[in-house]
């Protein structure tokens, strides 16, 4: 049915497929060069420049790490992670054995399971950061999209809220953080905390900073719906909810996603900074700990973190793009 089906092959693979089919080899090689060749060349040039420049920088912690050292440290971090996992498994095994032994002697004994006391590995920190950023982003979006719609629908509300948004939008996360920390410790007092305070602090800071782009873009999208479509809605006398669901939401989807992607990017940047400053678990803390540590490997390990942070940010954005492609009604729009 769909004549565009062949477009569904991933862009990077399509030229290979076409080449294999024998479709105009010259043109396909050209496409191949542009989509695969040029990025590889760019990467190689970057690596060369990096090692060249790194060799010339001497720091108190030794020479600035080049690609090779950084790669070594990446491997080392992985090995550390695996050994730490093995140790943890062994720890729990021993604990269970001991409990079983005591239970055999004394049936009334109530076992208490102790957590493994080891410190979180690099990969644990990645997972923590990802969970924090996604929770913060989801909460921010759940707040921002409906607010943006309501604000966009009423130009009076827009005028009332706009100055506030413009003031809060540029506030750095580092300024929010002390306030959030203190408020969380004051307000979140339970004996059986479901969340760590540090998690809440980081997450709320992320929410406060990533709320605005989604909210503003949603409001602008809603506000700029074509007046023809609004007239259609008026002539049909659509109810408020139908109007929002059938007309307002679909037509502001592109702007909402623009906002969401900006917000997610900001959320990720903000989180790393917040974790560093607040010493909350996550990649930011990893970087800070290495900085404090100051061993000869620290710079290379920080570089690993930098690259991983960048890659994760990139994949988060790609993820949003994929979501936008799936949700958007306008399949002809080129999304990048």
């Amino acid at each position, binding site marked *: 049915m769909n004549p565009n089906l062949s477009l569904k092959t991933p862009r990077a693979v399509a030229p290979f497929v076409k080449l294999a089919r024998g479709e105009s080899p010259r043109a396909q090689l050209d496409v191949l060069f542009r989509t695969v060749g040029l990025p590889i060349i760019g990467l190689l040039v970057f690596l060369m420049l990096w090692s060249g420049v790194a060799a010339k920088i001497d720091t108190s912690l030794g020479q600035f790490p080049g690609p090779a050292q950084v790669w070594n440290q990446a491997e080392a971090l992985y090995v550390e992670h695996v050994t730490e996992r093995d140790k943890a498994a062994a720890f729990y095994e021993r604990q269970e054995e001991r409990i079983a032994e005591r239970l055999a002697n004394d049936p009334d004994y109530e076992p208490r399971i102790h957590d493994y006391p080891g410190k979180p590995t690099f990969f644990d920190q990645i997972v923590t950061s990802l969970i924090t950023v996604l929770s913060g982003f989801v909460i921010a979006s759940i707040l921002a999209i409906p607010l943006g719609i309501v604000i966009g629908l009423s130009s009076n509300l827009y005028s009332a809220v706009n100055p506030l948004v413009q003031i809060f939008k540029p506030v750095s996360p580092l300024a929010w953080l002390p306030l959030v920390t203190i408020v969380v410790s004051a307000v979140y007092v339970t004996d059986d905390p479901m969340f760590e305070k540090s998690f809440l602090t980081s997450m709320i800071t992320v929410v406060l900073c990533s709320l605005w782009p989604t909210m503003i873009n949603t409001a602008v999208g809603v506000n*700029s719906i074509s007046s*023809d*479509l609004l007239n259609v809605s*008026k*002539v*049909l006398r659509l109810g408020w909810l139908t109007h929002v669901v*059938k007309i307002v939401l*679909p037509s502001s989807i592109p702007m909402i996603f623009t906002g969401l992607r900006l917000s997610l990017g900001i959320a990720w940047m903000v989180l790393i900074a917040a974790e560093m400053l607040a010493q909350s678990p996550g990649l930011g803390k990893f970087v800070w700990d290495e900085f404090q540590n100051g061993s000869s490997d620290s710079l290379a390990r920080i570089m690993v973190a930098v690259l991983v942070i960048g890659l994760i940010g990139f994949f988060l954005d790609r993820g949003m793009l994929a979501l936008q492609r799936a949700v958007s*009604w306008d399949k002809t729009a080129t999304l990048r």
Partner: protein
Amino acid sequence: MSDSHLELTGVDIEFPTPKGPFQALDDINLKVDEGEFISLIGHSGCGKSTVLNIVAGLHQATRGGVLLDGREVDQPGPERAVVFQNHSLLPWLTVYQNVELAVKKVFKGRMSRAEMRDWINHNLALVHMDHAAHKRPDEISGGMKQRVGIARALAMQPKVLLMDEPFGALDALTRAHLQDSLMEIQADLGNTVIMITHDVDEAVLLSDRIVMMTNGPAATVGEILPIDLPRPRDRLALADDPAYNHYRHEVLTFLYEKQKKVEEIAGSSAETATSQTKASGKAKERVA
């Protein structure tokens, strides 16, 4: 109380502008009978769309008002369906869903699901669009979109069908084809129609009466020309018909002699205002 179907009485409208109020219409009076086909013709920017929007309820008259079956028109509603100049289909819905949105709203509680489905398909078939029911607006041509817009309006079973230059953006062949379809449908259903057009042939071919508007600002009804040609009308046969050519001539005389555009006077300011509205209209089209 009058007993006419649709009645505009002493309609004035003033738009607030930064330079003070701009009076677009002055004392528009018109009575329309049930089942009548009225064309509004006049120079660009004279206020045809404004008249139509007032009948639709999208604009409010500053003075005077509109009565439909004795009831005052004070808000838009599906009994006065509008076919917009640029089709205004919702791009994220299929052809079928676009019509469905209207049918669901108008016939909720009065029709079963199956009846609605039949009714939607029936109206798409009327404009010969049933074959493309599951395409999206960006997958069909301009003429097809306009037909779906007409189907959507017809499906609301409106008392009055309002059309703002429905065929303005189409090529001559498609336009002729759609005019013929519209005549057939109107003969079948007997809708009351008010249609804006720039096209003299179109006006004479389709209308029972042509309402010719004077130039703005403060435009009003200049002349009303009853078209007394037997129906069904056939465009080829009419081409050589003296009566037809006489009507054409009347309209052309009104437009190009009596209401010749006087660019130096007020016309120029109205002209710039119109070109602005036109331009913003285009921009919206692109956005949509």
